[in-house]
């Protein structure tokens, strides 16, 4: 039996001046189930609240309607009042008769009758309110960072410094990511390795950080605060606890056929190798595909030469299961495959290279020891052509429709460094637009053009071909000069579009974190929650959320860390009780709700149900209340009405509609 109390607030004269509050209180007092009705100067005041509490006790009220200002202002206040008076805080409804009535309607009769109708709607709704309890769950005080590039390292360091345990999972044998491969960084031209390697070492030494390199996330279960993750630690065939990192094995390895990934395949490495000198951990790994021992059963030179007896050909992949409170995706980027861009001849001509390959060529630790030598004949190129937007801003289906953001700047950097070290070179850059909106970015690009004499050509390259004499002919347009030109070049560098790492898509599925069509992780809110995934407890760091340069990545990595720290600092997580709920008796298990849920809060389970026609097993929707945000998309998508939203049930809204339209 509903016993409802109505409390009409004057809000000084804010309401009372335009609404006849007495009449409202009287009219609402005559409504069904209303057993108490009163008006008062300031309901939100100490005395006003006391009035409510007393009325609850004296009239054994089960529901409260406050006709006052916007619920966005004082709903929380009156819920607390109800709670103190001993009834469930979710048995309170507010009729907004200030912002949406007295303040906007001049005519007192009209405003008064509207206030009465709004009050009736609130009464109609509160009749169907149910007591709701705030759910609580614990928090595992450990975070997982997926990806060990600069984004992942920075996030992990920040979390670890705040005193929380954090694990990094990196699929490659070493952390460092793409930044480790770079030569210099724009716009300051400081050496990438010099600023990155100390961070790598710090991450490795930090007491709160645990590294899982050469490992991949295999399964994620659970929800915010309580994730359970399976990590596959791939067999290195080297015992990490024994290896001293002396590198003797790598030197002795007779296999020399594998492309060296760290140098983008520009030179070869052995089947047992340490990716690069500063690798962390400094432990080699055996590439079983190329290892002679694995292929033929004979060899084992590395084993014979290992003083520490660390080589173990029988090692198997290991599955580690760990619990986490928060997960950070920091899977980074890769560059697109250029097979579809035959007109640039990347596959045909060795001297057409990607920018990442050019980074390695220019890097002192790279395959040419930092000397500018072109891959085909080792000659120093005299004329270099850079082509921007190769596959970026491309809607033809061959590339990516977005701007990769970093190419304009690194191309300017490459062009500048080339001209600086080799003043006898001619450097051309074909560009569509130069995008340099960042601190000192435009100045940097202008310096390349003005001080270093880099020829910027607004236009695009149509075809790259050879003249039969070993020269590359670059045919393109200069749309400002309105001419087509053909440049005889020695080397061409393509700024290939950057894309999210291939591992992101499957990770997104595991995390039920939404992704856009380009496989970038979607943020919870594009402006206000840029480092959070819509999936609670999952955070985003770096390029995996969208194209970013290093400073932006580091900034976002820190922001993600703060969000993680904020979450881990709580002992209990309170959840919003206004969440979706599925009626297993009615649910058909059609999955419509799951498809519209932005948070991945809906899963399916087989339930034994008896709806009167006999016991049977059915696939029914189950809402994870800790993950649901309560938007109600599922409730509107459910054709059978099995899904409903607590606090805003269909019945409640129907009752409001009926009351308003009565």
């Amino acid at each position, binding site marked *: 039996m509903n016993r409802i109390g109505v409390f009409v607030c004057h809000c000084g004269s804010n309401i009372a001046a335009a609404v006849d509050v007495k009449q409202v209180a009287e009219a609402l007092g005559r409504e069904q189930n209303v057993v108490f009705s009163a008006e008062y100067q300031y309901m939100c005041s100490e005395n006003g609240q006391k009035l409510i509490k007393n009325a609850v006790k004296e009239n054994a009220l089960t529901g409260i309607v406050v006709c006052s200002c916007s619920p966005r202002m004082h709903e929380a206040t009156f819920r607390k009042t109800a709670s103190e008076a001993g009834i469930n805080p979710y048995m309170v409804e507010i009729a907004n008769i200030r912002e949406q009535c007295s303040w906007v309607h001049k005519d007192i009769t009209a405003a008064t009758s509207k206030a009465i109708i709004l009050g009736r709607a609130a009464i109609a709704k509160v009749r169907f309110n149910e007591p709701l309890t705030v759910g609580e769950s614990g928090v595992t005080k450990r975070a997982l960072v997926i990806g060990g590039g600069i984004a992942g390292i920075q996030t992990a360091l920040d979390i670890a410094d705040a005193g929380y345990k954090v694990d990094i999972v990196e699929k490659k044998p070493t952390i460092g990511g793409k930044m480790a491969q770079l030569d210099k960084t724009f716009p300051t031209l400081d050496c990438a390795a010099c600023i990155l390697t100390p961070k790598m070492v710090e991450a490795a030494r930090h007491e709160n950080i645990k590294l899982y390199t050469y490992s991949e996330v295999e399964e994620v279960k659970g929800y915010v605060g309580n994730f359970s993750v399976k990590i596959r630690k791939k067999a290195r065939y080297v015992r990490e606890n024994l290896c001293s990192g002396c590198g003797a094995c790598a030197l002795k390895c007779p296999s020399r056929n594998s492309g060296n990934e760290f140098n983008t395949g520009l030179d070869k490495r052995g089947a047992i190798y340490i990716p690069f000198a500063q690798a962390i951990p400094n432990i080699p790994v055996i590439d079983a595909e190329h290892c002679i021992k694995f292929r033929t059963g004979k060899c084992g030179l590395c084993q014979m030469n290992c003083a520490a007896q660390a080589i173990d050909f029988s090692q198997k992949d290991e599955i580690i299961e760990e619990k986490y409170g928060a997960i950070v995706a920091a899977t980074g980027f890769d560059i697109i495959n250029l097979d579809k861009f035959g007109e640039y001849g990347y596959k045909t001509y060795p001297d057409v290279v990607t920018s990442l390959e050019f980074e390695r060529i220019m890097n002192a630790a790279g395959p040419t020891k930092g000397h500018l030598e072109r891959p085909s004949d080792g000659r120093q190129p005299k004329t270099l052509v850079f082509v921007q937007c190769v596959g970026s801003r491309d809607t033809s289906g061959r590339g990516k429709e977005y701007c990769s953001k970093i190419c304009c700047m690194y191309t300017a950097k490459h062009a500048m460094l080339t001209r600086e070290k080799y003043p006898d070179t001619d450097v051309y850059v074909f560009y569509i637009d130069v995008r340099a909106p960042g601190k000192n970015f435009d100045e940097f690009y202008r310096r390349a053009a003005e001080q270093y004499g880099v020829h910027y050509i607004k236009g695009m*390259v*149509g075809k790259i071909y050879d003249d039969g004499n070993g020269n590359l002919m670059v*045919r393109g347009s200069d*749309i400002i000069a*309105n001419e087509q030109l053909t440049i005889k070049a020695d080397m061409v560098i393509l700024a290939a579009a950057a894309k999210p790492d291939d591992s992101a898509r499957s990770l997104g599925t595991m995390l039920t974190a939404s992704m856009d069509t380009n496989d970038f992780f979607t943020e919870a809110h594009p402006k206000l929650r840029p480092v959070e995934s819509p999936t609670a407890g999952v955070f985003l760091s770096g390029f995996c959320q969208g194209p970013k340069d290093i400073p932006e990545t580091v900034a976002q990595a820190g922001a993600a860390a703060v969000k993680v720290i904020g979450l881990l600092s709580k002992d209990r997580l309170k959840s919003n009780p206004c969440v979706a709920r599925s009626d297993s008796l009615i649910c058909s298990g059609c999955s419509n709700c799951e498809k519209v849920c932005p948070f991945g809060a809906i899963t399916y389970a087989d339930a034994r149900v008896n709806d009167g026609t006999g016991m049977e097993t059915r696939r029914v929707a189950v809402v994870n209340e800790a993950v649901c945000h309560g938007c109600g998309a599922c409730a509107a998508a459910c054709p059978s009405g099995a899904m409903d939203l607590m606090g805003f049930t269909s019945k409640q809204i129907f009752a409001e509609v009926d009351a308003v339209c009565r």
Partner: protein
Amino acid sequence: MTEYDLSLEAIRMSGVYPERCMKCGKCSGACPSYGEMEYHPHQFVDMISKGRIKELMESDSIYKCLSCFVCVERCPRNVFPANIVEAVRTLSERRQGADRISPDTLTEFIDGDTPQQLLMAVMRKYSK
């Protein structure tokens, strides 16, 4: 028909969305006929979207396109510059007496090896 309407008509005929163009100039970087043209593929796309079709229609450039589809193939934005050139040329030729080559003048270039295919193509491309 005003010049603007004529441009719209050309756009409609070509089935192309010239507004998709991001003005990269790749079409003109690839065009084999570039040197022979007064207006180049990227200008066709640009001018047509600005309603400046008259200049294009008057220009010999419309007869210099080889319909080799290189611009279509390489355009990163799915603009079909060749279709626009064709639409402008067709509109130009649909006007009275605007045939570039008539059956009478055909004989001028015919030699013993001229394939039939060429005659057909010429009739289609250079006359109403």
